[in-house]
């Protein structure tokens, strides 16, 4: 039962990644692309991580996975910020 | 005494670190760091000559799991050449770089180059050989661009990229060997390797990679610019030693590891390329307008001779006849090593005094730099192959091997190559001994002239008289597949 739940979570996470990638390819300008990518990926990764933690079952592993998720969140937020800032600065010039 | 084999590697490495930490003392550390390994090498050679091949299983692990260092006749001869040449060149360089801004870094890299050479000649493990090859390539590249000119940087970069391609090709051969035979230890491989697709493909890949590094025609094009544009002491070791390292590996692979796998056809291909290199390189040397460029083209030609031995060696059955031919090859390589380093050092002296090395404007050299002119003449004797030089004996043995194996076709190549070598040497000497003011007046014998003339004397006299020692050492083999 838990396995099934975990699989559903992992696959829905992958679906988020997929749509994030489509957004990256199809959306018209940089900011909306960034928006689609970071939102979808962060959520997708979160779902995958919860699923994997359920599959694995040990609390220590779950803690490590959570740490990974937080780091990725921090990294992607900062890089998205930097990219958009750079784009803004270039537009002003 | 057990650890004797590590000292030729450990001493230059240790002194390199010291030179990096105390840059202001680097001149002294550099010369001492070149001299100490020479002592170690002499000890090793004495041991090998007295009691046969040596082996050191590093870390105490059985070779196979661990890495073994091995010294036998062939490696000892190469070690002796590299230790003696580097010693002489180091004394020269201590004058040449006495006031150079980057001499601290020069000495560190110089000692690392010696480390790499000695590690390569002693290594008994295929992957370790890859690491030493890379180390040798990188140190050579950095030393070659120390001059800082645009040409030298460009040549060094091209040398680096090609060297990487060569060592990767070598590495994929090593991967196939590991896939097929499950070990990297060369002694075990010497027993295990049998003729078959794995051995053929691996051998051709490894040889291909090494041929790039040893600059066999048509893969020679990187050599002349790289060697001609480096600072003189660096050119000397690049031409005399670094290209020889790849050649040494080819010999090891062909004669000892893959003995019985090598086919006559493959050897003939390499021999033909060598023959083309002899003629083309000598011709280009004759056309060259700059002294160092001429020396570099002459290196391409002389390497060609060494590869022309391959079909002869492959045609001979294992035994005394083949050892005679192999001894001749090694003797020729040694003579060229000493003679060419002497030649490059002399060229460096002329360049420092005259400010250029255009052959046509060298008139008056013999009067103002008599010792250097004498060095060039002596080195020339060895490069042409006149008696009493070592190369004369080597070529003589080569000719008699031609008759034994019936491979007459190579005869005209040797004749043409020797004539062309005579032509370019005498053309140079003609300019150098002509009257003129091309080189400024200076009659004093500089400290830097002595090592050059000593190297030339080794090539012409010592190797000629002691050639029998070479023939005695070569059959002492650490690898079961070939040799003794």
């Amino acid at each position: 039962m838990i396995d099934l739940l975990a699989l559903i979570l992992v696959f829905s996470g992958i679906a988020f990644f997929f749509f994030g990638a489509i957004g990256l390819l199809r959306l018209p300008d940089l900011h909306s692309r960034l928006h689609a990518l970071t939102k979808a990926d962060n959520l997708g990764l979160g779902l995958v991580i919860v699923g994997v933690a359920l599959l694995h079952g040990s609390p220590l592993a779950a803690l490590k996975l959570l740490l990974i998720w937080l780091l990725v969140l921090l990294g992607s937020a900062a890089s998205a910020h930097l990219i958009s800032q750079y784009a803004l600065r270039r537009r002003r010039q | 005494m057990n650890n004797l084999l590590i000292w030729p590697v450990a001493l230059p490495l240790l002194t390199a670190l010291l030179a990096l930490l105390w840059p202001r003392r680097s001149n002294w550390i550099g010369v001492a760091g070149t001299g100490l390994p020479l002592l170690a090498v002499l000890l090793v050679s004495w041991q090998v000559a007295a009691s046969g091949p040596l082996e050191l299983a590093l870390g105490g692990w059985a070779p196979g799991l661990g890495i073994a260092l091995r010294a036998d006749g062939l490696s000892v001869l190469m070690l002796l050449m590299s230790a003696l040449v580097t010693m002489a060149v180091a004394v020269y360089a201590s004058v040449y770089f006495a006031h150079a801004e980057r001499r601290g870094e020069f000495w560190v890299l110089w000692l690392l180059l010696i480390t790499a050479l000695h590690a390569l000649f002693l290594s008994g493990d295929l992957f370790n050989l890859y690491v030493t090859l890379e180390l040798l390539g990188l140190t050579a590249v950095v030393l070659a661009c120390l001059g800082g000119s645009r040409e030298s940087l460009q040549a060094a970069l091209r040398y680096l990229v090609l060297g990487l391609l060569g060592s990767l090709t070598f590495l994929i051969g090593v991967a196939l060997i590991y896939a097929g035979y499950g070990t990297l230890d060369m002694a075990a491989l010497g027993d295990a390797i049998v003729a078959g697709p794995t051995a053929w493909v691996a051998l051709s890949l490894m040889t291909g990679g090494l041929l790039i590094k040893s600059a066999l025609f048509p893969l020679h094009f990187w050599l002349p610019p790289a060697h001609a544009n480096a600072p003189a002491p660096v050119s000397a070791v690049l031409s005399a030693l670094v290209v020889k390292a790849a050649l040494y590996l080819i010999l090891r692979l062909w004669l000892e590891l893959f003995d019985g796998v090598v086919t006559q056809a493959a050897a003939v291909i390499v021999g033909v390329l060598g023959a083309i290199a002899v003629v083309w390189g000598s011709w280009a040397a004759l056309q060259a307008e700059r002294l160092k460029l001429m020396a570099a083209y002459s290196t391409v030609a002389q390497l060609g001779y060494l590869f022309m031995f391959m079909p002869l060696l492959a045609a001979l059955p294992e035994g005394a006849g083949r050892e005679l031919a192999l001894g001749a090859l090694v003797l020729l390589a040694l003579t060229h090593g000493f003679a060419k380093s002497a030649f490059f050092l002399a060229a460096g002296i002329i360049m420092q005094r005259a400010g250029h090395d255009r052959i046509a404007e060298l008139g008056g050299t013999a009067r103002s730099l008599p010792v250097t002119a004498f060095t060039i003449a002596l080195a020339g004797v060895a490069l042409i192959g006149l008696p009493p030089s070592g190369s004369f004996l080597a070529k003589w043995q080569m000719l008699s091997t031609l008759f034994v194996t019936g491979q007459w076709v190579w005869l005209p190549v040797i004749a043409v190559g020797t004539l062309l070598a005579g032509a370019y040497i005498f053309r140079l000497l003609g300019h150098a001994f002509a009257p003129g003011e091309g080189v400024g007046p200076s009659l004093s014998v500089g400290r830097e002239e002595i090592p050059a003339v000593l190297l030339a004397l080794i090539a012409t006299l010592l190797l000629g008289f002691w050639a029998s020692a070479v023939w005695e050492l070569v059959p002492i083999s650490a690898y079961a597949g070939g040799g003794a």
Partner: protein
Amino acid sequence: MMSQSLTMLPDLVLAAMLIGLAWAALSSDDLRRGVVLFIAFGLLLAIVWARLHAPDLALAEAAIGAGLSGALLLVALRDEAGGKETAGRVSQVSRWMVDLFALIMACLIGWVLWLTMYAEPAERLAQLANSMLEHSGVSNPVTAVLLNYRAYDTLLELVVVLTAVLGVLVVGRERRGYRQAGPVFCGLVHWLVPLLIVTAGYLLWVGAHAPGGAFQAGATLAAAGIVLRLAGNDAAGLLDGMLLRWSLVAGIGLFLLVGLGVTINGGLFLQYPEAWSGSLILVIESAATASIAAALVLAYRGGRPDGWLSVADYDNNREVSR
């Protein structure tokens, strides 16, 4: 059969993606695109390593292969922008020749691999290496190979790193630094750098019995330096002057001294006494981590810092101080 092909499916996809990415990276005429694709290729390769049960390599590939190589290539693009790109023409004939040659060689190599895979169940050195593990002082087999069985390779490899860095230092001066970063990036750096340092220490420590080790730790530490430099700290956290020289030398020096030191009571070069081997390996690895990190950061800075004095500078300093 069905289940077999199903388990093969991820491998097929991975292999196809590897080749596709490599092809795209190499055939792209836009350099920036090529470099970015190459980084993606490296990350994919890290997944392949994990898939082939090589977690040490997966870590190293992500940190060194994709991460640091990628960073080096990306800053190199910045230099490239000024220069003129000369796209040389390759004649159609030689293109065909090269293609043919590559095809033949790939087939030959593949053929040999196919032969060796089916020849016999390959034992190679696996059994031996794993059975000697208890005598090696560590329980991570890769670390045992790197720092005990084949420690000599690793020693020479550190020398290769030193040589390359000396080359970088000799060739030219370092690149200009970056402007001071904005608040968001600075905030990130304040968190990230300590975290990276802790991670490096963890990787170093854990390398004895689990995936990790000096190279992964050194690369992580170097990443901390690179992040610092990107945030406007031009020295990238490196020491200056003599201390920099010492940190470059430390790894090789300690390795060599330990190797020679164990010969004093009769051992062979690098033959650690069994009771000590675990601690000796850790000491060597710690020094090596520092040296690797210093070397990689210097390589990223791209030349010699102003604090790297030549012999002539030392002489002048002495005259000035008199």
